[in-house]
């Protein structure tokens, strides 16, 4: 075969895997907790990159929601893991966790979610003291087809975290 001649076809078929950080940056997270959280997320990125690199079945996309007084997309675009960079968060205000669930619910509808994908992963980082009525929003999220299938992980931040809410 002449130099540089490729075999036919493309890359092996793969499915998108959407990974969403849900990050608490309310006042109770102020100080060492938010700094520790920023550091922890940054630490995971190289490992996520190498895990994605070794897995041809998945295309890993990451984004992040922040919540304090209200909630907003901190990193709105589903970003390929190779391009993902963590932007540090500051803590202040309330803990509108329910608003964060609503934002995620909007993104787990089809569309914008594709028809075929791997189960999405939602990771909640919080000290677990929501100040809004989060239960209804959480229930709505969990009732969506992709919400039901999602892998949901809650990580407690700080030794005083209220872990009952995070369960």
């Amino acid at each position, binding site marked *: 075969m002449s130099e540089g001649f490729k075999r036919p076809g493309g890359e092996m078929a793969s499915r998108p895997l959407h990974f969403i950080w849900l990050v608490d940056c309310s006042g109770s997270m102020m100080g060492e907790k938010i700094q520790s959280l920023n550091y922890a997320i940054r630490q995971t990125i190289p490992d996520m990159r190498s895990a994605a690199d070794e897995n041809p079945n998945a295309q890993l996309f990451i984004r992040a929601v922040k919540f304090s007084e209200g909630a907003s997309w901190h990193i709105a675009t589903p970003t390929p893991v190779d391009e993902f960079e963590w932007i540090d968060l500051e803590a202040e205000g309330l803990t509108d966790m329910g608003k964060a669930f609503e934002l995620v619910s909007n993104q787990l509808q089809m569309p914008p979610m594709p028809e075929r994908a791997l189960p999405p992963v939602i990771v909640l980082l919080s000290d677990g003291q929501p100040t809004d009525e989060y239960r209804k929003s959480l229930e709505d999220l969990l009732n969506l087809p992709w919400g039901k*299938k999602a892998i949901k992980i809650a990580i407690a931040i700080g030794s005083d975290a209220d872990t009952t809410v995070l369960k």
Partner: protein
Amino acid sequence: MTNNGEEDREGGASLTISMLQSGDELTSKNGITYKIVKLLGSGGQGEVYEVITSNGCLYALKWYHAHMNTKNQKEIIEKLVEDGKPDERFLWPIDQIESSKTFGYIMDLRPSAYKSIVDLMKRRVEPSFRELCTAGFNLADCFQKLHSLGYSYCDISFGNAFLNAENGEVLICDNDNVIVNGMTNSSVQGTLGFMAPEIVIGEKGPSAETDLFSLAILLFYMFMLHHPLEGAQEASIKCFDAVAKQRVYGQNPVFIWHPEDKCNRPISGYQDNAIIYWGIYPKFIKELFILAFTEGITNPKRRIVENQWKRAFIQLRDRIIICPICGAETFYQDNSSFGASNICWNCNKNIETPPLLKIGNNLIILNRDTVVFEHHLYNDFNLSDRVAKVSQHPAYANKWGLKNVSQKDWLFTKPDGSAVTVKPGKNVPLICGTQINFGNIEGEIKRN
């Protein structure tokens, strides 16, 4: 993300920090001191580091997470170290190290020329079809070696085999799951997508027999860049989660090219590689894959054994035709249904078949760089000793011959029936109808 029992905790958040640091020194059971150079990678079982001895030799250290620090896993490693590596192609445990919390083993480092099968799947490494066939042969040969020594590998998947795209050589790593076949002490069940259906549905544990299924999956991936069971069934599943995978790989596994049951054909636009590659390869290799994923699913005793793969990949390599128009590698198809010619998958032009050498069941396309090995005469898998090679006439560039590079005289019978002795170093012209007696084996140069 790794999780281990020795990590530090800072500020209340659990962080991923490697278990060992550069400069740490560890002394092995054999009394050798290894200094940590750097972290190479991490996985579910542990981390792998580059380490250096006091006399400057570099090795790899696999260091288990604390949860893997079990008596069973230690015994497996001890036995593998004691038995010694099957051959140089295995990155095998060669020494052990223990700490108060966990343990690990030393193995050779993988040279950088060897790339993972994931790189092949993501098209980051692009071997020619020729080297891919050689890699397929070598991979089957490695697992044959392992199985013939009474072991089972237990977790053949993307991450365990590496190939050199330049020459098709392979390396087998992660040998720490290897057990004596028939034992049930494996620390792994395998990787979903590679596991035999009977493991997926929980009926059996890994064995040499289930290795053969995983090997067939890995080979199919290498040659087709697609999974053999992912057709219409997978395409119809929205969320491909563990439950769906159980169904596709365990409860209802149907080969995408099942000759009778056509319910799981690949879907164009979504599973294109499967369709493209199936159209390129000759019938005999497709028949082998059909057997692997029809009978090989329903009856584990009928799985394709390594010798069958080895023979098939040599045959496949022997049938490569270099398209004279575009230079792509294409495969000679027996009794082409379109007449005498083959069609190039790349430029779609008819290719006039070059002369070929038929020796028994072996059919070798005589390209400009073709070499005939002892295997072609004796079917003994000897691909080291050369018998003949195609050579160009020194004075007439368009004249080609088959040069005797063996130690034996050949007897060359021309189409008119006259016979001439061909001494080592001499040539036979590539004329169709020529018979060559290679000693005690006959071959014929043909056009089709």
